C-alpha cells in the first residue's frame, strides 16, 4: 500500500488470469504524425511532490513510484492495456501443480545500467531485502500478505526457485511491482531509464539506460526517448497550463474540469476518458479503540446501524453528477465496477433512503425532532469532523455534498481540509481524526494484493489498523477468507471468497464507498505509441516504447 497526495493508494500485486475487460492487441496510439517511431527527444511531465526516497523498494508515494516505474526492471510486467502479465527479466516461469513452487528462467545477456551483468543473485538479494521487516518496504508487506513465508533457491546463474510454505494463489502478480535491484551498486537499474540529475524543488531528470534489455528490429535497444524530465509541480492548474502550452506531453489522472478545458482548447484528441478506474473514493470512521476522540463518538462509529444510516443518507448520484460532472460511477464496494470479473455480481451501491437511515438511527437511540439536530441517547449532539486533502476541487465538492446530505438527518459535519502530510499523520500515526474522505487506488485487477488493507492485523486496515485479535466477528471472517483464497489457485473458490468479503464490507459498512471515478488523462498529439489504460500509471507505464514526434517548424 502506498500513500499519494490525492489518494490512499494500494499496491495490488496479485496477478489476474481470467480478468475481464482485457483487450488483446490493443492498438497503439500513433500520435499526431503516425508512421515510424522517432528516436530521441525528451518527454516531459509533472510529478506532484518531491521524491521521498531513491530506494525503489521503499516507494510509498506517487512521485517515488513514478520513478520506480520508469527506472525499474521487473521479472514480469503487467501490460496495463491487456491486463495480462508479460515476460520481463524472466524469460519464462513454471508454477508447480500444487501452487507451492515457482521457477523462473532469467533472460540471459541482460546488464544493469552500470554495465554489470544481471544474475539470479540479484533477484534473491532483491526479494530478501524487500521482505526484510526492518526495511519496512511497502512492497514487502504486500509480498508477505500474498505469499507468506517462502524459501529462495538459486539453481543456476539464470534460474531461481521460490518455494512457498503454502500454496499461493497468484505468485506472479506480486512480482509486478518489485523492481530488481543490483546486489552490488544501489544506483544501477534494469529499467529503460536511469537517474541523471535531481534538482530539489525543480525536476528529476532521467536519461536512457544504454544497457536496457528490450530491443526492437535490427537489435537496437529501447527506449526511443533520450530522457524524461519530471518537473516537480505541486499545482495541478499550473501543470494544466504547461500541458496546454506544449511544455508537458502528458497528464495522469486529471479531473473533469481539466478534461473539459483541454477538450475545448485542444480538441478531443488530446484527452481520453478511459472509463471507470480502479479507484474508490471512500469515507470511513475512526474505529480505533485507543483513538484520542470522545468515547461516545467511538460508540457511534462502532455501530453498524450508525454507519449504514450514514451510507443511506448520501446521495451518490449527486456526487457523480455534481462533483465529477458525470465522469464517475456510484460505487458498490471495494472492487471497482471496472473489474468485472472480481466485482460481486448484483452488489449495488447503498440506496439513498432517508427513512431507512432515520429508522436505523432510532434503533440505536438517536433522536431528533424535524429540522432539529440529531442527539444520541445520552443527549450528545451528533457532530463530527471529516479530514480530507486540501486544494482539490473535486474532493472539496464531495465534502460539501456530504455535509449537506448529513445535515438532512440532523448531523453536523465539519470539514477539515489538511495538507497531505498532516492528514497522513492523523490517519496513520496519531489516529487523531473522526472520519476521513480519501481515495484508494488499485494497481492490478486481482484483489489478492489488497489483503494488506482488509486483514484486521494489517497496518493499513484504515478504520482500525493493527488489531492483535480481530475486533469483530465479521473482521475475523474476512481474515479467514483472505487466508483461504491465498491458499488455493482455484479461481472459482477465490472468487467466491472475494464475493463474500465484498458482501461483508457492504453489510457492515466500515468504509462507505462513494464513487469510482473515471480514469481521465491528457496526452499530447506528439506522443506516439501511448496505450492509455485504466490501471495506474495510466499513460507512462510503457515508457520504453513511447516516442515524441518532433514539433513542426512554422
Amino acid at each position, binding site marked *: 500500500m502506498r500513500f499519494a497526495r490525492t489518494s490512499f493508494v494500494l499496491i495490488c500485486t496479485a496477478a489476474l488470469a481470467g480478468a475481464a475487460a482485457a483487450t488483446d492487441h490493443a492498438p497503439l496510439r500513433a500520435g499526431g504524425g503516425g508512421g515510424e517511431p522517432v528516436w530521441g527527444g525528451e518527454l516531459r511531465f509533472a510529478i506532484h511532490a518531491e521524491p521521498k526516497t531513491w530506494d525503489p523498494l521503499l516507494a510509498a508515494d506517487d512521485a517515488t513510484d513514478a520513478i520506480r516505474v520508469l527506472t525499474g526492471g521487473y521479472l514480469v510486467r503487467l501490460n496495463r492495456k491487456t491486463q495480462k502479465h508479460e515476460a520481463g527479466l524472466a524469460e519464462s516461469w513454471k508454477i508447480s501443480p500444487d501452487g507451492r513452487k515457482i521457477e523462473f528462467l532469467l533472460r540471459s545477456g541482460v546488464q544493469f545500467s552500470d554495465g554489470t551483468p544481471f544474475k539470479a543473485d540479484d533477484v534473491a538479494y532483491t526479494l530478501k531485502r524487500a521482505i526484510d521487516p526492518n526495511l519496512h518496504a511497502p512492497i514487502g508487506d504486500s509480498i508477505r500478505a500474498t505469499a507468506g513465508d517462502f524459501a529462495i533457491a538459486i539453481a543456476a546463474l539464470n534460474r531461481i526457485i521460490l518455494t512457498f510454505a503454502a500454496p499461493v494463489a497468484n505468485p506472479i502478480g506480486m512480482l509486478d511491482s518489485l523492481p530488481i535491484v543490483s546486489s552490488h551498486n544501489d544506483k544501477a537499474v534494469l529499467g529503460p531509464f536511469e537517474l541523471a540529475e535531481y534538482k530539489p524543488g525543480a525536476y528529476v531528470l532521467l536519461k536512457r539506460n544504454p544497457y536496457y534489455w528490450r530491443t526492437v528490429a535490427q537489435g537496437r535497444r529501447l527506449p526511443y526517448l533520450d530522457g524524461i524530465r519530471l518537473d516537480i509541480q505541486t499545482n495541478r492548474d499550473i501543470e494544466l497550463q504547461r500541458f496546454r502550452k506544449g511544455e508537458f506531453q502528458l497528464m495522469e489522472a486529471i479531473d473533469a474540469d481539466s478534461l473539459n478545458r483541454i477538450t475545448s482548447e485542444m480538441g478531443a484528441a488530446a484527452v481520453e476518458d478511459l472509463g471507470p478506474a480502479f479507484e474508490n473514493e471512500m469515507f470511513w470512521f475512526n474505529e480505533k479503540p485507543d483513538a484520542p476522540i470522545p468515547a461516545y463518538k467511538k460508540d457511534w462509529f462502532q455501530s453498524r446501524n450508525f454507519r449504514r444510516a450514514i451510507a443511506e443518507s448520501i446521495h451518490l448520484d449527486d456526487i457523480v453528477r*455534481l462533483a465529477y460532472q458525470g465522469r464517475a460511477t456510484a460505487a458498490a464496494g471495494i472492487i471497482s465496477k471496472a473489474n468485472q470479473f472480481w466485482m460481486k455480481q448484483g452488489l449495488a451501491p447503498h440506496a439513498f433512503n432517508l427513512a431507512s437511515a432515520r429508522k436505523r438511527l432510532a434503533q440505536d437511540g438517536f433522536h431528533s425532532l424535524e429540522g432539529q439536530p440529531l442527539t444520541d441517547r445520552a443527549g450528545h449532539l451528533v457532530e463530527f469532523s471529516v479530514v480530507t486533502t486540501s486544494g482539490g476541487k473535486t474532493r*472539496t465538492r464531495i465534502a460539501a455534498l456530504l455535509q449537506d446530505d448529513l445535515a438532512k438527518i440532523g448531523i453536523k459535519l*465539519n470539514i*477539515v481540509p489538511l495538507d497531505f502530510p498532516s492528514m497522513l499523520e492523523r490517519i496513520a500515526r496519531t489516529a487523531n*481524526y473522526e472520519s476521513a474522505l480519501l481515495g484508494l487506488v488499485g494497481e492490478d485487477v486481482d484483489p489478492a494484493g489488497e489483503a494488506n488493507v482488509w486483514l484486521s492485523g494489517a497496518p493499513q486496515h484504515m478504520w482500525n489498523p493493527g488489531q492483535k485479535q480481530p475486533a469483530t466477528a465479521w473482521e475475523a471472517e474476512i481474515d479467514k477468507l483472505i487466508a483461504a483464497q491465498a491458499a488455493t489457485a482455484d479461481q472459482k473458490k477465490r472468487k467466491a471468497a472475494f464475493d463474500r468479503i465484498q458482501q461483508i464490507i457492504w453489510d457492515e459498512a466500515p468504509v462507505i464507498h462513494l464513487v469510482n471515478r473515471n480514469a481521465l488523462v491528457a496526452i499530447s498529439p506528439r506522443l506516439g505509441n501511448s496505450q492509455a489504460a485504466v490501471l495506474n500509471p495510466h499513460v507512462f507505464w510503457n515508457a520504453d516504447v513511447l516516442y515524441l514526434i518532433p514539433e513542426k517548424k512554422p
Partner: protein
Amino acid sequence: MKILRVLAWTILTVTAAAALSAPLIAPAPYEKQFREFPDAAPSRQFPLGTDELGRDRLSRLLYGTRISLLLAPSAALLATLIAAAAGIAAGVFGGRVEQLILSIVDLVASLPWLFLLIAVRAVMPLNVSGYTSVAVTFLLLGALGWAGAARVIRSAVLSVKESGFMIEARALGIRGLRLFVTQLLPNLRAPVLAQFWLSIPLFLLAEANLGVLGLGVSEPLPSWGNLLLDLVNHHEIADQPWRLAPAVLLVMVLLSLQAVQNPDGRRGNGRRALAEA
C-alpha cells in the same frame, strides 16, 4: 482627486452595508444547495447564477464579503498595532533595544508564514466552527504580518526625531513622555494609518491565496478566497462572465482602499509643525 475619494468611500460604504445586511438581502442561505440547478445562469431566482453545487452565487458573495471585509481590517489593525509598538520602541530607545527589535523583525519577516498557517491548521482541534477557523486564520495573518510595517514606522520615528521641530521642542524644554505624547506620536499618525490601510488589501489577498490552496475558509462558509477559486476555470468565464463578480468586487475594494488610505489628503509623511506644548 476628491471625487475619486468620495467614489471610493461610496464603494466601500455600499459594499460594507450590503455585506452586513446579507441575512436580510441575500436571496438564499449561502450554504443552500439547489442541486437541480448547478452552474445556472443568472435569473430572477439566482441573480448571479449558481455554483457547481447549485448554491446561489450572490448570497455567497454577500456573506463572503462580510467575512473578508470584517476580518481583514481586524487583522490589519492587529498587525499595525504590533508594528507601531515595535517600530516606535526601536526608534525611540535605539541601542540594544533597537537591535533586539530589529532582529525580531527580521526573524518574523523571514518566517515561512504559509507553512506556519498550514501547521497551525493541522494542529487545530477538529470540531471548530467555520467562524473560529476563519478568525484564527486572520489572527495569525495579523500576528505574522507586521514586520514590514514595523520597519517603516521605525524609519518614520527616526526621521521625526531628527526633524527641526523636535529640536525646537527640546530647546523649549519639552522632554520625556511629554515630548513623546505631544510631538512624536501626532507626527506618526499618518505613516501608521498608511500602514493600516496598506495592510488591509494585503490580508485580503493573503486569505484569497489561502483559499486557492484550499486552506482558507472551510466549506460551506464563503469568503473571497474560496469564491475566487472559481476563476481557476477561466476558459468558462467567457461563457459565464458573471463568475467574475467576486474578482470585480475585490478589485474595486482594493482600489478604493488605495484611494482612501491618505485620509488627510496630504502628500509626504504628513509631518506637522511644532505642536503646541
